[in-house]
């Protein structure tokens, strides 16, 4: 019927364009809108641009093992010659697609993840997906995803972590995971490969800790936004490339630290960020914080700190010990609010505040993420007891709420500045 001759995009092309537009907007902000940009961050900007704007695949010819949460041990995936690809999704485009398939009040992260699977539009399509039974919505989303024709295996995850029984239960699940993956890959798990994988991931974690050390200093040489990008890249990047790029970044930060190059203003309040995970390109709240003269010095989220904080601690390098140590890392050290009791999370946040000399905490929950919404009460109480100012925000993936949220964040940051002045 049209009288103008241009092809109309297919749904896939439209989805790609929408995602590219979301991605480039954030990447351009990171590249251009902050002072003293870091040269070696360009690797990460470019990585996200290649994947989300140019739709390049990174792992052609490899078996891609999709994971739905951080509890699926990457060590075992690497040891069995797979590439872990974490599919937690931050795109509003996919959130809108998922909204038609999920309850209206569901969490945007899950909606976006389900929407992504529903579209089937992947640059690195997972050959198999492992879904740990963590929160209700992720657990149930598994069956929805399976109904689209993906091979998906549930991995039983306990929701208490204090008891010895749950520890045993989870160790069994991890073994089961290794068995399933080993069958899928047609390869037996061996000691050397598992040990190498543990060492490699351990090394990546050590780089994260080095990176974090710079943020403890008085002069902060890197934005929280950039760190989120680095840690988010670990979801899907080739691990060796990631390690090399992060090493370069650390060398540049060493120079910047010596030359006292800062990314902050004269009196930018130091913030610890906790709650629902910022996943590219949904950096809405971190962006508002850092555009309002705050600086995120540390975070307690599963898209960043929680992936790297705790290492696998092996006693004896035999396969049974290694497997048990891996299991413990993914259960005992985890501070996800799905657990019945979660004193660990409060301790972690308080510890981060002290270690990174933060002046306030910003706690964000996705509207629909019930466990984070529920746990804000105990965290707020605990912070009050410790005398740490905290701001609680609810948000989602929609691009439109900026105004109201930024007013609240700005007021909070101003109050931190006033507090500091009065102290002096």
């Amino acid at each position, binding site marked *: 019927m*049209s009288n103008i001759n*241009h092809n*109309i*995009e297919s749904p896939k092309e439209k989805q790609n364009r929408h995602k*590219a537009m979301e991605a480039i*907007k954030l990447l*351009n902000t990171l590249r251009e809108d902050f002072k003293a940009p870091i040269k070696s961050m360009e690797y990460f900007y470019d990585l996200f641009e290649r994947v989300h704007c140019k739709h390049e695949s990174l792992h052609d010819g490899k078996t891609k093992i999709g994971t739905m949460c951080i509890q699926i041990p990457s060590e075992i995936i690497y040891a069995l010659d797979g590439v872990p690809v974490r599919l937690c999704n931050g795109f509003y485009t996919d959130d809108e697609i998922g909204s038609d398939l999920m309850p209206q009040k569901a969490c945007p992260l899950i909606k976006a993840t389900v929407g992504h699977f529903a579209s089937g539009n992947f640059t690195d399509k997972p050959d198999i997906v492992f879904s740990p039974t963590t929160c209700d919505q992720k657990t149930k989303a598994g069956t929805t995803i399976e109904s689209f024709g993906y091979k998906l295996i549930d991995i039983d995850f306990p929701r208490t972590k204090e008891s010895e029984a749950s520890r045993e239960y989870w160790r069994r699940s991890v073994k089961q995971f290794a068995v399933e993956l080993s069958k899928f890959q047609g390869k037996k798990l061996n000691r050397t490969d598992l040990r190498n994988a543990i060492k490699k991931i351990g090394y990546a974690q050590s780089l994260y800790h080095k990176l974090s050390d710079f943020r403890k200093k008085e002069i902060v040489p890197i934005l929280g936004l950039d760190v989120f990008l680095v840690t988010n890249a670990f979801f899907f990047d080739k691990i060796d490339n990631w390690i090399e790029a992060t090493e370069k970044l650390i060398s540049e930060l060493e120079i910047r630290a010596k030359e006292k190059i800062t990314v902050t203003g004269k009196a930018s309040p130091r913030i610890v960020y906790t709650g629902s995970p910022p996943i590219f390109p949904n950096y809405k709240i971190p962006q508002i914080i850092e555009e309002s003269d705050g600086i995120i010095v540390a975070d307690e989220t599963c898209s960043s700190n929680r992936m790297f904080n705790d290492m696998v601690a092996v006693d004896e390098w035999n396969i049974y010990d290694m497997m048990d140590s891996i299991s413990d890392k993914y259960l005992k050290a985890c501070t996800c609010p799905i657990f019945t009791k979660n004193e660990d999370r409060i301790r972690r946040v308080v510890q981060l505040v002290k270690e990174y000399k933060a002046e306030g905490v910003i706690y964000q929950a996705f509207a629909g993420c019930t466990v984070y919404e529920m746990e804000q009460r105990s965290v707020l109480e605990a912070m009050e007891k410790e005398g740490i100012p905290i701001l609680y925000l609810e948000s989602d993936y929609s691009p439109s709420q900026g105004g109201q949220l930024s007013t609240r964040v700005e007021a909070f940051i101003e109050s931190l500045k006033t507090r500091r002045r009065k102290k002096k």
Partner: protein
Amino acid sequence: MKYFAGIDIGSTAIKISIVDENKNLIGSKISASGSMFYKYAQETLDALTNELELNNNNIAYIVATGYGRKLYKEADENISEITANAIGARAAASEFGEIKTIINIGGQDSKAISLDSEGNVVNFAMNDRCAAGTGKFLDVVALKLEMDVNMLGEYHFRSQGTPLSVSSTCAVFAESEIIGLLGNDHSIEDIVCGVHYSIAKRIVKLVKRVGIKEGVYFDGGPALNAGLVNAIENELGQRIFVPKNPQITTSFGAAIMGVDSYNYENN
């Protein structure tokens, strides 16, 4: 032969169409609204009747429509631009098939109109009180990019990279966003393309409020911009029909309305 005039006085332009007794369009004229709606409307009508070698006595009935319709006191009747647009669109698209949805972007507003199979308006949605995402917005963008507004379409199709969206389609805020993009040396083509997609997304939301059906018709001045047409088609995921002269549809509809009213009153 009797003739009938439809005068559409918009915020930016005055559009006049003249039809004969059989509702055939015999001429039209567009001029800027300027500051004196009434005076310019009269001048434009005179100029058009001269061109068509008619005199004002041949004009049996005048229907005024549009934002400034009440200022044109000589009109025999005045009707809302929604009704006029619906009538005009159906007539203009008659050779192409049935029109179910109209998208109209004017100088300072935008609307989506849903029609039933007889062409009656069943639902419509308009933008809020501001000129975000309208023709005025495109004017501001073109001015900032130092190009004629007619060039926007061409730039759109030359975009090679990812379209750079503007978060606000408010003409005032968007200007500063565009300055920011220009300051960072982004390609003008990608900016233009992003601007079109930002408007398209907004208009598609409006269309969704009245329901998306097959048979979408797009008119108003911005419909001359092929880049914007492309963006709306992509956002809707379907072809839309743009008439040859998208600016005059509403005045054409008013003129047709004049024929019916005249016949009704005189029979």
